C-alpha cells in the first residue's frame, strides 16, 4: 500500500482482448467474444492486487494477456523493473524482446495436476527456467533447485521424483518453486489455492505471504473465493463481463462496496457462522454472454437498482476518494 504513490511496478491501461468468432465455409468473421473490454489498473511493488468476479468475467484472460501468453487486442502495459528504471511498454515488444522480461513475470496455475509435466522430474521442472535463461547449470543448478524446494517447504530429496507421487498441495508448492526460480518481480496467481483443501490452502497462502515478504514480489491474485481475497490482498478490482466495475483497497471494497454488483457478490458469500444465517438477496439469473453483452451498463440485466439510462448509457468511472473507484450511474447522482 505504501508504494501507491511511488512508481508502480505495472500500469495497465485500456486493456482489451477480443477472441474472434469465425463461421461458415470461408471462416467469415461474424463477431467477437469480448473477454476483456477495456480494463485499467496498477500493481504496486510488494503488493497484492486481486482480480475477482464470476466465471467468464475476464479475470484469467487479463492475467494471461499481461504476461503475453495471449496477444492483446488493444491497450498498453507499462512495466518498471525498478523504481528508477525506464518504463518498458510490454505490449510493444516482439516475442524475442519480451524474453528477458519473462524472468520477472511468472504465473502459477489453478490445477496442480494439469500444470506439471508428468514425465519430467520435479527437479528438472524447477530447474528448467534456470537453464533456459542461462542462470545456472551443473551442480550450481542442483543447489539452486534444492534451495527452492526448501523455500517452499519441500524436502530437497524429492528432486528426482515425478509429479504423480505428490498430493495437490505439494504439487502447488512445486509450481510455486518453479515460478520462484527466476526471482520474479510479479507472479500472477491464477486461482492458485482454489483447488486445495482448507487446511492445505492455509499452508499455501502463508507460503505466498512469506515469499512476498522475503523477495518483495508483487502478486496479481485471480480468485473467486472472496474470503481468501480479503485476507491476502492490498487492493481489489471487481470485474464483470470484461470490465472493472469497482476498484479500491481491500478495506474499501469489503467494508464500503459501492457498486451494486460488488454488494451482491459480497452478500452472496456464505459466512462460517450459524448465528448469521440469513437468506441472501441473490442475484437473479446468470452472467450474460460476452459475445452479446448487454447495452449500456453490462450489469443492468441483473441489477436490483437499475434505471432507464443504465440500459443505454455506459456508466463513467466515478472517483470516490482515496483511490476508490466504481462505474455506476447512481454514484454520479449522489455526488
Amino acid at each position, binding site marked *: 500500500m505504501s508504494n501507491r504513490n511511488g512508481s508502480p511496478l505495472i500500469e495497465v491501461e485500456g486493456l482489451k482482448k477480443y477472441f474472434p468468432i469465425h463461421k461458415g465455409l470461408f471462416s467469415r468473421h461474424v463477431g467477437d467474444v469480448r473477454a476483456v473490454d477495456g480494463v485499467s489498473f496498477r500493481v504496486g511493488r510488494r503488493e497484492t492486487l486481486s482480480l475477482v468476479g*464470476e*466465471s467468464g468475467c475476464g479475470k484469467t484472460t487479463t492475467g494471461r494477456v499481461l504476461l503475453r501468453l495471449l496477444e492483446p487486442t488493444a491497450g498498453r502495459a507499462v512495466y518498471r523493473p525498478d523504481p528508477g528504471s525506464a518504463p518498458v511498454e510490454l505490449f510493444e515488444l516482439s516475442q524475442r524482446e519480451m524474453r528477458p522480461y519473462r524472468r520477472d513475470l511468472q504465473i502459477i496455475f489453478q490445477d496442480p495436476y494439469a500444470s506439471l509435466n508428468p514425465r519430467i522430474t520435479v527437479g528438472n521442472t524447477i530447474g528448467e527456467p534456470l537453464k533456459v535463461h542461462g542462470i545456472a547449470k551443473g551442480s550450481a543448478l542442483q543447489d539452486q533447485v534444492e534451495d527452492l524446494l526448501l523455500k517452499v517447504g519441500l524436502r530437497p530429496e524429492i528432486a528426482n521424483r515425478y509429479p504423480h507421487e505428490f*498430493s*495437490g*498441495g*505439494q504439487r502447488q508448492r512445486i509450481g510455486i518453486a518453479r515460478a520462484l526460480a527466476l526471482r520474479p518481480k510479479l507472479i500472477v496467481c491464477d486461482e492458485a489455492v482454489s483447488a486445495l*483443501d*482448507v*487446511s*492445505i*490452502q*492455509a*499452508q499455501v*497462502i*502463508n507460503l505466498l*505471504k512469506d515469499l512476498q515478504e522475503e523477495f518483495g514480489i508483487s502478486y496479481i491474485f485471480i480468485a*473467486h473465493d*472472496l*474470503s*481468501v481475497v*480479503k*485476507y*491476502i490482498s492490498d487492493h481489489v478490482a471487481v470485474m464483470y463481463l470484461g470490465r472493472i466495475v469497482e476498484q479500491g483497497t*481491500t478495506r474499501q471494497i469489503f467494508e464500503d462496496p459501492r457498486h451494486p454488483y460488488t454488494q*451482491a*457478490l459480497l*452478500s*452472496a*458469500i*456464505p*459466512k*462460517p*457462522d*450459524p*448465528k*448469521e*444465517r440469513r*437468506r*441472501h438477496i*441473490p*442475484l437473479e439469473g*446468470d*452472467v450474460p454472454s460476452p459475445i452479446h453483452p448487454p447495452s449500456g451498463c453490462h450489469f443492468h440485466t441483473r441489477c436490483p437498482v437499475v434505471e432507464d439510462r443504465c440500459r443505454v448509457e455506459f456508466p463513467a468511472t466515478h472517483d470516490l476518494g482515496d483511490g476508490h473507484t466504481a462505474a455506476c450511474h447512481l454514484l454520479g447522482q449522489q455526488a
Partner: protein
Amino acid sequence: MTLSETKQDTDRERRGAAVPLLELKDLRTYFYSEEGVARAVDGVSYTLLEGETLGVVGESGCGKSVTALSVMQLIPIPPGKIVDGEILFRGKNLLELTGAEMRKIRGNEIAMIFQEPMTALNPVYTVGNQIIETVMLHQGLSKLAARDRAIEMLSKVGIPSPESRVDDYPHQLSGGMRQRVMIAMAMSCGPSLLIADEPSTALDVTIQAQILNLIAELQEDTGMSVLLITHDLAVIAETADHVAVMYAGKVVEYAGTPELFERPRHPYTIGLFRSLPDLAAPGQRLPTIPGVVPSAFHFPSGCRFRTRCSIATDLCARSEPPLAKVADSTDVHTVACHHLAEAQTL
C-alpha cells in the same frame, strides 16, 4: 381442528420425537486394488432425522462422498465393496434388499445430486427426456403426463420459460441452470431424502447462493431430509441442522450446527476452523494443520489424526478413540478424542 393446526402439530411431533430417517451403523466400504486395500469408509455411524439437514464435512479423501454413494449403492463392485455395517432407511436395512427392491428406492425415495452437473446429465438426451424417463419409471405416468410433470418441476426449480427449456440439451444451459435441472430431476418423484454431494462447489458464488436457497425452499415445501456433503464450513453454517465431521474414513465429531461452530472439541475440527481465512485478521498468519491427510491405504494406528495433532500421546498411537458423548454438553455432541480436556486449551 383446522388444517394449519394439524400441520403445526405434525411439525411439532416430528421435531419432538425426532424420527430417524437414515441411520448408518459402522459402515465400512473398502476398495481393493493392486496397491492394497483402501479403507475409504471405515466404521462410519451417523443419524439423519426426518425433515432435517445433516451436513457432512471433511477434506478430499475423507470418505464423505463414498459414504453417500454407499447409501445409494452406487459403489462400483469391484473394486469397491461394502464389507460391513448397516444402512437403515426408515428402519429397513438397505444392504439386505435385492437389486430390484433397491431400484425402487434409488431415484424415487432417495435422490442424489452431484457436484458436476455436466457429467451427471446425459448430453445426448434433452433435459425433459431425462426427467420424463425418471417419472415414467418410478411413478408409472404416461409419457404426456410425465412431460407435464417435467415442465412443472423445471418451473418449480426456477428455470425461465420451462415449456421451451424442456426440449433443450444440457450443453445449451449454463452451469447453474444444469444444477437446477439436476435438482428438478431429483425432486420429480418426491423423495424423502435428497443427497447433495457438493451441489454448489463448481458454481460461482452468486449462483451458489441461488442453488442453496432453492434446496432450502424445496425442503420447506416438501419436508424432505437433506444429506449435504461439502468441504465448505460456511455452506454448512448456513444450511445444516447437524454436522458430522469426517477425517480419514471416520466421523471424528458430530453435533448440532450452532454448538459445533461455537465450541468445536476435536483437535481436527478446531484446526479446520482456525485455518479459515474468514476468521483471521489481515496480516496475521493463518494457523494451519501441519502435514497432509494420510493415504487410505496406510492409515496410522490408533487415532488417525495423531500424525498431525499437536497434543497426541502414546495412548493415541495405541488405541483408537471411540466416538463418545461429550459430558458437559446438553446437545447430542459426540467426539472421538482421548484428550478432550487438552484439546480445549489448543
